[in-house]
């Protein structure tokens, strides 16, 4: 069963409170997702560390159930 955008989003925000997750359905099949995650917890981390934090939030599903998640990470800009 592919994961829904809401499931992916809620797992990420549960692990990274305050994170903003923007999901895009890349193929229109509810299976190939792009996620842009903006989280204050990324501050001071390099890209690999930031991506690993999201993968950890997804609890090992990345590369398994979630075979096609395109990920972009960003640190919120202060306003």
């Amino acid at each position, binding site marked *: 069963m592919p994961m829904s955008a809401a499931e992916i989003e809620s797992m990420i925000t549960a692990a990274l409170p305050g994170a903003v997750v923007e999901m895009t359905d890349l193929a229109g099949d509810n299976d190939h997702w792009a996620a842009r995650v903006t989280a204050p917890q990324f501050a001071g981390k390099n890209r*690999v560390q930031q991506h690993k934090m999201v993968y950890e939030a997804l609890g090992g599903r*990345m590369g398994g159930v979630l075979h096609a998640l395109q990920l972009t990470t960003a640190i919120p800009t202060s306003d």
Partner: protein
Amino acid sequence: MSDAHSRISALVNDHDVVLFMKGTPLFPQCGFSSRAVAILDHCGVAYEGVDVLQDMEIRQGIKAYSDWPTIPQLYVKGEFIGGSDIMMEMFEAGELQQLLDEQQVARAEG
């Protein structure tokens, strides 16, 4: 140390740039690997493509070696750089080209 670990270690240390991928640079078997190949080709560097579909030991081993769950994976001078999303982010920011220049990796022939 497992056999897979030592084989991967030898691969990433013997070549300046190594891409662990699905398929070959000429025939990538997955969209993410295809994107990684396109980025490296655009940068014009010589690299070693390792087809994990032909080698189950490497396919499983590389995930543990890098502590990274997906393929493709890029190594430069023995160091894990990231997967295709990070490659694309770095490429768009000009950081990948800068890294390859700084590390003085060999250019692709022709």
